[in-house]
């Protein structure tokens, strides 16, 4: 199995590292010698320092015997041309491209059916903006994601002192809440991931991941003592692509939005593109500007500049000024363990989101999606149960689940079942599981679905 990755940025690096650890043949092409060196020093892959859209380079890299081409440079044009050339030279190679410019959005499908026949076009920014939008609406939620085309959501929230759940044992849930009991997938306490059993209890300060039907989400949050309050004023730091997309989305929902952007030309561009949003020219960490514009009064602040350090700093500063709801964009995955300790919890990462959607697209078999949380320390896996698997046709309590793994949801004919001890998984059901990193391998065996690529 051979994969060519064009672009050695953060996305290229992360995918290359995941694939290399799966013993695949990976070739990475990038023009930047610095980025290439970082890859070749750390990973067992082949590297070429050249332009990935150059046909001769593609042939040299062995495009003809390559199964998949991933075009993930920062330039949409380079990605498109790389796919176009690959399509001409080796039409059988699967192609996947990252295209970020919003003006291309409506052409994604045309790229698939016409030249250059890109099998999958991904735009992580769309996903990230949607995630930010969801995070905005769920106060206290640290992480939100969805399965089964949005019918089921998982939410990570921090349990506070006043929550009625604090101190409760999990097996008391059935007697207390009955059918509508929340399904807890993971508890993170003192930076440790616990997959709960009946005897575990919830403590204030815990970060809790639970799964819920999208329609019942509001009720669930009420159980945890959280209310959904529609936001009215939003503040965006950084008017890049994500900031612009988010502002457009917020304008549609008539939320009063202000954007701070440091580049004056970009400010002018934004002012041309956006209608009601107020564009402010200034540095993202300019406290005077924050006071001038009453940032402390806004319901939510989203820091999405290109610079991780600025984003973190701004979020900390605003927490200090009394803004409860801050969302921070982080690109570098090695910052993740640090963030919870300094109190930054609502984090989005377009790069990681790109990595996971690319991996999902290239993954073969019955796994539908695979979402890493907490900087890859745990995974939600959405899969289809096979007849040959040990998991089917048996009451759940008779199945020995590996330690650190839990079945959180069964979807049968678009009906959503929260599993109990007596539940039976039938072949063909969609199941959603959670597993800590160490348990993933064992879970694979149980499912007889190798969590394999290709």
């Amino acid at each position, binding site marked *: 199995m051979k994969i060519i990755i064009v672009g050695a940025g953060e996305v290229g690096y992360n995918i290359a590292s995941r694939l290399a650890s799966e013993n695949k043949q990976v070739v990475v092409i990038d023009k930047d010698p610095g980025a290439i060196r970082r890859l070749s020093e750390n990973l067992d892959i082949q590297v070429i320092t050249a332009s990935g859209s150059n046909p001769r380079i593609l042939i040299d890299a062995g495009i003809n015997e390559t199964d998949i081409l991933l075009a993930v440079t920062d330039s949409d044009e380079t990605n498109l041309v790389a796919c176009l050339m690959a399509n001409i030279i080796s039409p059988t190679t699967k192609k996947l491209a990252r295209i970020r410019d919003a003006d291309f959005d409506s052409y994604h499908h045309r790229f698939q059916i016409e030249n250059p026949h890109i099998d999958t076009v991904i735009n992580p920014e769309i996903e990230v903006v949607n995630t930010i939008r969801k995070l905005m609406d769920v106060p206290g939620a640290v992480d939100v994601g969805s399965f089964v085309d949005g019918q089921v959501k998982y939410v990570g929230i921090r349990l506070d002192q006043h929550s009625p759940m604090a101190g409760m044992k999990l097996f008391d849930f059935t007697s207390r809440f009955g059918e509508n009991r929340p399904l807890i997938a993971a508890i993170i306490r003192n930076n440790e991931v616990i997959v709960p059993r009946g005897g575990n209890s919830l403590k204030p300060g815990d970060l809790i991941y639970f799964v819920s039907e999208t329609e019942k989400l509001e009720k669930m949050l009420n159980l945890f003592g959280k209310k959904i309050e529609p936001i009215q004023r939003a503040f965006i730091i950084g008017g890049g692509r994500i900031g612009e997309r988010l502002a457009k989305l917020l304008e549609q929902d008539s939320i009063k939005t202000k954007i701070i952007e440091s580049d004056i030309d970009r400010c*002018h561009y934004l*002012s*041309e593109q956006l*209608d009601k949003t107020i564009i*402010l*020219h200034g540095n993202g960490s300019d406290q005077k500007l924050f006071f*001038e514009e009453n940032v402390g009064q806004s319901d939510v602040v989203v820091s999405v500049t290109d610079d991780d350090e600025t984003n973190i700093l701004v979020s900390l500063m605003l927490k200090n000024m009394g803004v409860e709801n801050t969302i921070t964009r982080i690109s570098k995955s090695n910052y993740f363990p640090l963030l919870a300790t300094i109190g930054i919890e609502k984090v989005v990462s377009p790069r990681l989101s790109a990595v996971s959607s690319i991996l999902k697209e290239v993954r073969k078999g019955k796994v539908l999606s695979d979402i890493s949380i907490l900087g890859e320390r745990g995974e939600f896996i959405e899969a289809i149960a096979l007849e040959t698997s040990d998991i089917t046709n048996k009451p759940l309590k008779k199945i020995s689940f590996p330690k650190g793994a839990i079945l959180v949801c069964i979807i049968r004919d678009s009906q959503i079942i929260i599993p109990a001890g007596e539940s039976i998984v039938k072949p063909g059901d969609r199941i959603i599981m959670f597993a800590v990193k160490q348990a993933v391998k064992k879970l694979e065996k149980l499912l007889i679905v190798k969590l394999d690529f290709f």
Partner: protein
Amino acid sequence: MRWSFIARIIGILLIFLGLSMIAPLLVSLHYHDLARDSFIRSIGITMVAGLILIILSKKMRSDDYINQKEGMATVALAWTAIGIFGALPFYLNPEFTNFTDAFFESVSGFTTTGSSVMTNIEGAAKSLLFWRSLIQWLGGMGIIVLSLAILPFLGVGGIQLYKAEVPSPVPDKLTPRLSDSAKILWVLYGVFTLSEIIFLLGGGMPLFEATCHALTTLPTGGFSPMNASIAQYNSTYFDYVIVIFMVLAGINFSLHYQMLRGKTLAFWEDTECRFFLGLILVLTLLVTWDIYGSVYTSIKDAFRFASFQVVSIITTTGFATADYEKFPGLSQTLLFVCMFIGASAGSTGGGMKCARIIACFKYCYRELFKIIHPRSISHVKINNIVIPNEILRSIMGFMALYINLFILSSILLAGMGVDMMTAFGAVAACIGNIGPGFGSVGPTENFSHMPVMGKWLLALCMLIGRLEIYTVIILFVPEFWKK
């Protein structure tokens, strides 16, 4: 400044003007009126003057192009020349005793103002009344636009002349080629005029009067062959037909074009058009409310007369069905303000134009916004299109010049012994190309009693207003003449 080019273009336009005098000559022959000889002599003088200019000037090569400066000078001088030669049929007629009056009437016609010095209109020769209407029709869409549509001679330089004659605050060309755009405009204009003639005939108006009125409605001119203007007929049907055509003439013609090309919502989607129509509605309701009871006893009459006066003034047409000087103060004030607002950009109407008013309000709002949010960056947008700062500056400059010229001219006119209300009213009516003003130049009076110098001043105001200030005013800036 290449005078030779300018002279040649003016020469060609004069020949063209001479040819257009054949139409009233035919009318004269049909009615056997006394103006026949004056038209024959006018045609002769105008054609000969045009020919002399053409013979004396150099032939233009197809690659000669006119720069912006020359374009502006050409248009301003051409309009003056046309005003002078167009005055000949008036001057050579016994109704006019001096050239000042003839020139005033001619300029008032070409600039679609509609202020008149004639005291007994119905007593004049029919052909002369037809000429009065025809020059408004020619001036409404622009003589140079017309020549661009039918004469290929202007070629490359045409765009400069076009910009000088039709200075739109936000430039828009209907088609990539100028002559095609000009043709579309004139065809639309012609079709509207024909339809109005048919509607008026349908209501029983005689053909001659229907034609004259249609020829002066579409250019938002306002000359009428009747002494009492439209009030003569006292017909609800005629009132509303003319209101509708005045409104159509006050809307940007490129929107009419888009409508015809199948964009049915074009009027609604355009900010300026929405503003224009909304303003007419609000003002009509206000005036109706104001005059109902105090002037008219029936609400139907109040609405009918309110809508007619509001539309007539805001589109800068100047027809009258009622003496608005007998209206209460609120209505008079609103109509006076209408004189400044004017119609849409790209229409045949005058005034400051709604687009500029909108831009001005948005600009002012932006300034206030900037005080509240000192670090904010924002643009003025109309129809979701950003208006660049230089265009905004030119719009603000236009408005400032407009007001300043209004003040200066009013003072000058008052200095000639005219009372204050009349001075303000006459100047506002002439710069805005409306027609009737206030005071002693109201809808039931005329301009014949103005002092001689005052008539020249007002004629200049009309030219300045018609060519949207910059084109004329630039000639008075010394820097313009420096080499």
